[in-house]
């Protein structure tokens, strides 16, 4: 018996050694290439010097960062999207500290980021910037933050109605959820872009970006609803009975007792959905909206700077990663301190 255990331990050790070896060599190789391309990197100079150097072309980014980040937003008003990005980052930063976990933070997210910031980018009370001119990171953040911000409450409503709504609402939410989950986001975006205008009454026009946002909200609400429904089912029936016997009606029971527990249980899959939505907004490229991914692609197609796709895509990949990674860290933190 002891021998078997010893053998098993030995094998385990050997295996972990093997895995560490693979990992270290992979990281070493990666580090080598990064260092090499930085060492050979071109900081100044034209595209031609970049091509011959064989390193990372920083001068491409120096030339194009503005377009990649902000698209065709007017240069003179660039402080607006900068302020917007800054306030999003600030919001994420604040959320990491338990000290700020108060109603004010929720207010900040929903009222400021979701409702006010689009108006701000559009230029309320100042020079108007048409939504069609928005691009780059602000557009990506707008689509994903407003998308998540609106789809979350909608998802809660759909989940509640699917679970125990009256007949009509129950079956329409089942229908909506199953329909939306059954089709890819791209097809919804196409619908929003090409077909939706046919359904509007004549004279009514809704901007393409807002239509895309609508598609994103409906799409992610369906997924959120299923995630949240899982949480609702995980709250024991006893909780509802106790609430009932204390006299809580349906909505009070859900908002005060069931949802706080249910939403907490499903934090990991909720953040999962939010992160995938954040990245899926890059699909708006196919209906010709200039989000961060599209601007990166367009920057590469400049004839003066052909062949710089590596630089461009690494740049946006880092931005996507920074946001997604901080979301997941944030969820980890929230989950740990709520349990």
């Amino acid at each position: 018996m002891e021998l078997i255990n010893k053998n098993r331990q030995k094998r385990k050790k050997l295996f972990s050694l093997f895995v560490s070896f693979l990992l270290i060599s992979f990281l070493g190789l990666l580090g080598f290439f990064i260092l090499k391309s930085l060492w050979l990197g071109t900081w100044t100079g034209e595209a031609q010097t970049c091509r011959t150097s064989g390193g990372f072309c920083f001068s491409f980014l120096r030339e194009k960062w503005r377009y990649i980040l902000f698209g065709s937003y007017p240069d003179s008003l660039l402080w607006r999207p900068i302020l917007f990005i800054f306030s999003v980052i600030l919001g994420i930063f604040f959320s990491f500290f338990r000290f700020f976990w108060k109603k004010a933070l929720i207010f900040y997210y929903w009222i400021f980021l979701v409702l006010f910031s689009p108006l701000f980018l559009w230029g309320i009370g100042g020079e108007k910037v048409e939504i069609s001119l928005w691009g780059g990171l602000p557009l990506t953040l707008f689509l994903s933050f407003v998308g998540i911000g609106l789809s979350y409450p909608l998802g809660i409503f759909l989940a509640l109605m699917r679970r125990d709504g009256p007949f009509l609402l129950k079956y329409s939410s089942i229908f909506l959820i199953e329909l939306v989950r059954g089709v890819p986001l791209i097809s919804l975006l196409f619908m929003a872009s090409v077909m939706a205008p046919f359904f509007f009454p004549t004279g009514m026009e809704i901007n393409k970006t807002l239509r895309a946002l609508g598609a994103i909200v409906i799409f992610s609400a369906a997924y959120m609803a299923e995630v949240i429904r899982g949480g609702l089912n995980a709250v024991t029936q006893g909780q509802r009975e106790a609430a009932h016997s204390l006299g809580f009606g349906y909505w009070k029971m859900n908002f005060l007792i069931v949802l706080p527990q249910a939403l907490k249980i499903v934090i990991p899959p909720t953040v999962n959905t939010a992160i995938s939505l954040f990245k899926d907004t890059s699909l708006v490229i196919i209906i010709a909206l200039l989000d961060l991914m599209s601007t990166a692609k367009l920057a590469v197609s400049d004839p003066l700077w052909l062949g710089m796709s590596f630089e461009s895509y690494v740049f946006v990949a880092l931005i996507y990663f920074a946001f997604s990674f901080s979301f997941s860290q944030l969820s980890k933190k929230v989950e740990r301190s709520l349990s």
Partner: protein
Amino acid sequence: MTKPLILIDQVFKWYGETLVIKGVSFNLEKGQKAVICGPSGSGKSTLIRLINQLELYQKGNIWVEGILVHPDVVSSQQLCQKVGMVFQQFNLFPHLSVLENLMLAPCWIKKYPRPQAKELAFFYLKKVQLEAFAYKYPNQLSGGQKQRVAIARSLCMSPEIMLFDEPTSALDPEMVKEVLDCLLELAQEGMSMICVTHEMGLAKEMADIVAFMDEGVILEMSKPQDFFYSPKHARLQTFLEQVL
């Protein structure tokens, strides 16, 4: 004659095809304490859940203080002011502290201002001797403490009658006593109670009426001394032989 607090008249209840309550009649005057016992699956829990609208009956009538318990007639909001309920599994709200558990219903249902609700909560916490635990969370308490908090939480809505659904069945044996003491104290203060329990000691000590249920009917209902020392029904005699 005064109006009975609880009046159950020929109530039938089906779960799908299965008949679980077969024409039960029962009444309780204000201040009386009733204990319902019987083998598991006999419908005793279902019976008290009917009073609180946790289950709906299909035939017969139940009145609480002269108000018909029926979803069309009385909302749970009105009912909860009169009927408090304590569960076997405590069902404290785990995301709220003990104090918030107690304050939630008075604040949101009775619309008490927070200071008043807090005062009320502390009054009942003192009664169950747990005021030191006000800021703890339910998962930091022992089973007996949880059940006492659950009792205090129901009392905060100042009910006319308390229903207990096997309040000690989920407890470790050494914690049963603290909950029973709490029940006895409550009984002495004159609270009307219906208690479903397997604790025969409790029935002997505080009950005005003891009822024995089996297979959806009340087989015997009498004063404790008659119930325990001269049971008439054969089924009750075998039951008592087994539990005593």
